[in-house]
């Protein structure tokens, strides 16, 4: 038996390329070990450790820079787009963990496992965002999902938490089946799972009209559609979002979505132009359905978490508009919007976390009555985030939506853009409801006193607000970064 030739240089380069992932995984293991050593009252150090780890991962990602580094025989690549999504995901994780300083104390998630699961899930997202092989993407998807299933059910004493986790888990396993089946079919047709190779095979028509391959792409799309909760694959979303500890909900909305869209974007931008007519039809319908059902369902919700869950469905629809448009403009719009959505979503959840006294019925809209003037900073922040979600200038949400719909118009999908703008007009109604309740409803007798935020928590909220405003007023550099990232992928 011949010994396997070992290419040390390639291995080192590969490890260098996954430096942020390794930092995150290392932090997770450190947190688990530290959990054993720390006394009960010192558990909040775990949170600090996680924050430091993610910050270090951000620095290492920045250190790698936007240049293209391939690793592990093309299984993973760190390129401009990878960097963009890495930073988005890590920023979301960082903000989540900073909010955890407060949340964990109130809701009993001050445990080593909690942080370790968040970090492991983050590493899965990073693998997914940078994977250039369907195998890596799938493993990243599972690595991000399994911790999330557990995190959704973290509150084992709450029926809704368990219910959400169970539904999410069962359906998630089901959709993973589709995903994997899709990959298998694509492999059967193409003989490889490398995304760039498949793309080039599609371009020179070797795979054109191959039914197995098409079915594979369809099933793969179903798997993605489940993760980013596109209608009709969205059923789990409201239950899981409502049941999960709010911090986890915020993390799911911001980071999971970013990772799934990263991988989807890689697949779509590289491969779908070759099968355009069918694909654009599918994406068109999915986007239209998702926006409409998400927004109109959100109109009827009285629970903030549930409302934001439907809103996140609707936002997935908006992002899909950019994907449908395709090309540099569409890709750029998707990247920018994913970033913006992470901030506004985390911010909105952060504020309602402070206002709601307890899980479940604490998030009823009535609970927000009259807090606007009583707690002007909280009220102002929540209004800002909601206004941004609604896409009203001068917030980042407006610029993001403008780019998404602008890209659609430029690619000739005027109908879809009309539908999108109409939908965001509808969405204003439900985003406004909490604002109306905060500022224009009489406060009840028993004044709800928001939880006193920890300094890291306040910092996270302020950072999100600053990002939402800055990206709204001066989005130029972020947009340029997004554009360069997409160009680097398409080159």
């Amino acid at each position: 038996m011949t010994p396997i030739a070992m290419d040390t240089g390639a291995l080192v380069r590969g490890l260098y390329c996954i430096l942020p992932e390794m930092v995150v995984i290392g932090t997770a293991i450190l947190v688990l070990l530290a959990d054993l050593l720390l006394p009960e009252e010192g558990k909040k150090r775990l949170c600090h450790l996680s924050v430091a780890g993610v910050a270090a991962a951000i620095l290492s990602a920045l250190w790698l820079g936007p240049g293209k580094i391939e690793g592990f025989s093309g299984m993973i690549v760190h390129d401009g787009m990878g960097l963009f999504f890495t930073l988005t995901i890590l920023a979301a994780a960082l903000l989540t963990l900073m909010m955890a300083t407060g949340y964990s104390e109130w809701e009993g998630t001050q445990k080593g496992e909690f942080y370790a699961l968040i970090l492991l899930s983050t590493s899965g997202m990073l693998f997914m965002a940078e994977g250039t092989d369907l195998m890596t993407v799938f493993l990243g998807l599972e690595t991000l999902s399994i911790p999330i299933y557990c995190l959704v059910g973290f509150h084992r004493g709450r029926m809704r938490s368990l219910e959400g986790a169970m539904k999410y888990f069962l359906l998630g396993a089901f959709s993973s089946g589709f995903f994997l089946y899709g990959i298998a079919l694509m492999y059967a047709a193409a003989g490889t799972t490398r995304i760039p190779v498949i793309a080039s095979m599609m371009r020179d028509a070797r795979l054109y009209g191959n039914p197995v391959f098409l079915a594979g792409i369809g099933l793969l799309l179903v798997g993605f559609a489940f993760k980013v909760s596109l209608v009709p694959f969205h059923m789990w979303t409201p239950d899981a979002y409502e049941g999960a500890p709010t911090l986890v909900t915020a993390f799911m909305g911001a980071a999971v979505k970013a990772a799934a869209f990263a991988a989807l974007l890689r697949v779509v931008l590289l491969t779908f132009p070759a099968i355009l007519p069918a694909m654009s039809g599918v994406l068109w319908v999915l986007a239209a359905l998702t926006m409409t059902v998400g927004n109109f369902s959100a109109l009827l919700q009285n629970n903030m978490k549930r409302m934001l869950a439907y809103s996140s469905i609707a936002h997935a629809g908006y992002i899909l508009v950019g994907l449908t448009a395709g090309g540099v403009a569409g890709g750029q719009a998707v990247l920018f919007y994913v970033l913006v959505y992470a901030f506004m979503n985390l911010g909105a959840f952060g504020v309602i976390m402070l206002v709601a006294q307890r899980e479940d019925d604490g998030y009823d809209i009535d609970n927000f009555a009259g807090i606007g003037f009583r707690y002007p900073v909280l009220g102002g922040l929540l209004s800002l985030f909601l206004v941004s979600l609604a896409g009203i200038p001068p917030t980042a949400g407006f610029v993001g939506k403008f780019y998404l719909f602008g890209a659609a118009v430029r690619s000739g999908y005027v109908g879809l853009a009309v539908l999108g703008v109409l939908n965001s007009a509808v969405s204003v109604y439900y985003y406004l409801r909490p604002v109306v309740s905060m500022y224009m409803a009489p406060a009840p007798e028993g004044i709800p006193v928001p939880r006193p935020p920890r300094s890291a928590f306040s910092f996270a909220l302020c950072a999100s607000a600053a990002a939402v405003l800055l990206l709204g007023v001066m989005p130029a550099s972020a947009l340029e970064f997004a554009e360069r990232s997409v160009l680097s992928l398409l080159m």
Partner: protein
Amino acid sequence: MNGPSDFIFYAAAALTVGSAILVATLPNIIYAAVALLFAFAGVAGLYVFLSADFLAATQVLVYVGGILVLILFAVFLSNRLADVKISNPGHFHLPAAAVCLVLFGVLSYTAVSTPFAVKTAVYLPTTADIGEMLMTRYLLPFEVASVLLLAALIGAALLSRPERGTPEKADMEEGRG
């Protein structure tokens, strides 16, 4: 290679599909678990036909020998499950069957209409190649899988560890596997 080998192939396929249908429809979960055993065995037989000797062996060892035994243990140990009817009550069978049939149609159409590049099977041991692949080309997925397992382990430990003051949690946990 016609004749008996064809017959065995169809037998294995029928065993797999038939047992799988039984798993989905049997009302008693223990019977369903036993049916699953046959489905796994059938899949192992199909692997043999694909000249995937290592996979066939692993299938038998891990799934039949390991996972299924775990499932049976879980069923026996969670006494409460005996009271709860596991399978779906009637109102979904018809539409679900219809959709499944359509899916079956779509997939068989795909399979039939695709011009597959047919390779003659070469029966050679694959274990060494798989091992080498896992250490070279597929090193990253291999390692990521270990992270995945770590995460699953932590999650399982977390969810199964008793927590004070949560009396009704036991009802829910089996569903998570």
